[in-house]
């Protein structure tokens, strides 16, 4: 057996393993990126969307943020569509919010990641805020 064969066996073996890992990794963790309008429209046509990982970007509805500290920290707020503020949905999040998060006039843009429950509440596992290009030098606030 010559060297090329040995090299190739190793190469093919590792490539196969890496490909397998990437394939399963992608299918397990892929999330769809939607706007609130897209989410609310698509979920009616396709109820399986409730079971998928989703990322939804929008804006925090003014004055909608309530921090409930009875029985552990729980944040409730609504996220509206950037273009059409009449479309919004409720979000619940049980962790610390980024410092830049608020529901004042500043119109904080957020990306919420998680699942859209059957009862129409978005259960977020992660909330990112975007400060816009002014603070381009900072990576997105990661929570």
């Amino acid at each position, binding site marked *: 057996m*010559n*060297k090329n064969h*040995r*090299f190739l066996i*190793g*190469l093919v073996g*590792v*490539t196969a*393993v*890496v490909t397998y*890992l*990437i394939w*399963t*990794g*992608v299918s*397990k*963790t*892929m*999330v*769809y*990126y*939607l706007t609130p309008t897209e989410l609310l429209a698509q979920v009616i046509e396709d109820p399986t969307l409730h079971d998928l*990982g989703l*990322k939804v*970007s929008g804006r925090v509805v003014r004055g909608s943020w309530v*921090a409930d*500290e009875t029985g*552990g*920290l729980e944040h409730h707020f609504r996220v509206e569509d950037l273009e059409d503020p009449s479309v919004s949905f409720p979000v619940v999040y049980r*962790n*610390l919010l980024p*410092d*830049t*998060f*608020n529901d004042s006039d*500043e119109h904080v*843009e957020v*990306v919420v*990641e998680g699942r859209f429950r059957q009862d129409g509440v978005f259960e977020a596992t992660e909330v990112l805020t*975007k*400060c*816009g*290009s*002014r*603070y*381009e*030098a*900072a*990576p*997105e*606030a*990661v*929570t």
Partner: protein
Amino acid sequence: MTILGELALWIAFPVALFGTVLAFVGGRQQRGDLVLSAERAVYAVFGLLTLASAGIVAAFLGDRFEYWYVWNYSNRELDVFYKAAGLWAGQRGSLLFWVLLLAMFSVIAVFTNRKKNREFMPYVTGVLLTVITFFLCVLLFAEVNPFEQLPFAQADGRGLNPQLQNYWMTIHPPTLYLGFTAFTIPFAFAISALLTGRLDSRWLVIIRKWTLLSWFFLSVGVIFGMRWAYEELGWGGYWFWDPVENASLLPWLTATAFLHSVMIQENRGMLKVWNMGLVTLTWTLTIFATFLTRSGLIESVHSFATNSTIALIFLAFLGVTVSVSILLIIWRYDDLKAENEIQSFASREAAFLLNNLLLLGIAFAVFWGTIFPLIGEALTGKKVSVGPGFFNSVNAPLGMVLLGLMGVGPVIAWRRATKRNIKKNFFMPLGVGLGVFALLVALGSRQWMSLITFGLSAFVFTVIAVEFFKGTKARARIEGSAPPTALLHLVSRNRRRWGGYIVHVGIVMIFTAFAAASFKMELIQTLEPGESVTIESPFGHTYTLTYQGVSTALRTRNMEWQAQALLTVARNGKPVGSITTEKRMYLTYPAPVTEVGIRSTAFEDLYVILANAEDLGRALSNDAGGQRATFEVQINPLVGWIWYGGLMVAFGAMVGLWPSKGSLAEHRSKATPREATREPVGVTV
């Protein structure tokens, strides 16, 4: 000063361009005067870029808010330290800083090779000046000129993002940039070797220290970034598989692969094409990383307005350089054939090869995950992305095999290992590894991935410890010297090998810390002053934190207000000190910023975050009733080992970098005119 700097930047561009042409023409026609002139262009460009950078720094220090860049990243109240660091605070300045560092390394490369390796130098100079010219071109013509002026001078600047006002964040980008730019030197030598056709081991010898230097800075830079995230952004996390983080990891992975595979080429004359490819790939990834961090390409898919001119220019440049490199390798393919072949799977070559494949596999997975949003959108039209879960599930198994290989590599023989060799050297370390694993299982832990990692770490650590122990003993016996002296001689006789082992110990520590992260404890609790919260450490003891209240300061120099919560800490009921965490409201930033409180010990960090003071308004006015606050308390086991491990890695790399004065010098002692037997001459004798 600043106007002079701008002028210098404009002069640097034609000088670099002209120098590029001179270098290539000089190399092609073997014109020594043109080459000398091109080398002088390198010095001139460095001088000019130093002037330009000094101009930017002067503008920052002088609060020259008529410059867009200064206005956007500074204000009058900013610390002088951060003002000076404004050079690399944003995209525009950091591109200038990048090319300044590249010019600095180019000067060092040209200067140290002014009397040797002359065959390579015309094209080395040419390649370096090409890259410099490209960056200058971007700076001047892609609307990112740091000297751009505003129509009206502003009274005050917009201030630096408070998250960037952190010591680690100030030194993190320059360190990474040093790593990125230093790798251009090996790349230039690789291309020069291809162009001149001098493809023996000489170019590898020349670039050995350069690659290690670059790798050193990349490693340290990545660790600094983690440290910053841990303190400032991450709330107890240090790695988020964010595109920017991934981009800095990619060249580190391929450079690591190269540092290993180059040893196979040196020892066994194999993998020449592979190594050439790795150098090119690593360099490409350094440019990709620069481009990704400073163009906002990936983020732009979802958020930020992007400077698409820059994205296109960078992509075009990467496309051209990669194609040219590949064509050159194909052109010289016949000269890059292997001199030996792998004899056995059970050999050090095979272990190194597997190491290379795994590192590249990880790099590919990281790359794939990073650009997945782009691919996904292009293919399906839907916006998709993968999260940290993807990176962890792909990289954890690969990383664990890699970890195990670190224990195999040092003791397995080159060429082919016999069963006896394997038995003799693996029995004890494997026993230790399995013992640690079994012990942890017996203690009741069921975090399998972490436990296997701990077991593997123990195995690798034992292998390396035994290497040091036996080596020192043998050396002491041979020399008849005391163990410390023997150890010193052992290391200095083969710095690369023993330095490498030290690096491996550091990496093992870092892996251990990663694995320990799954034992992290955290809880969120709202407290009134006087109330306390108790958290149990995975090591068995408990911490009790008692909230003492918030003290506030209004209208400090650059802050609107500052609210600091004080908590006293007791370990198993015994007071051990206190910890503070605060919220700050900077004058120039729209949201409050959290400063976390960390209490570090060798085995764990107690980490406290002031999540939200219930009613900051009342707390600020020192109303006793308004001091209710919510805290997140974490215990991060072994997290400090990342930083200690990082120090170890840096130390090991420095051992390898230290100039050696060994008995087997790299240069020949006796003078010979040329490698006379290299080419046969058509003479009949």
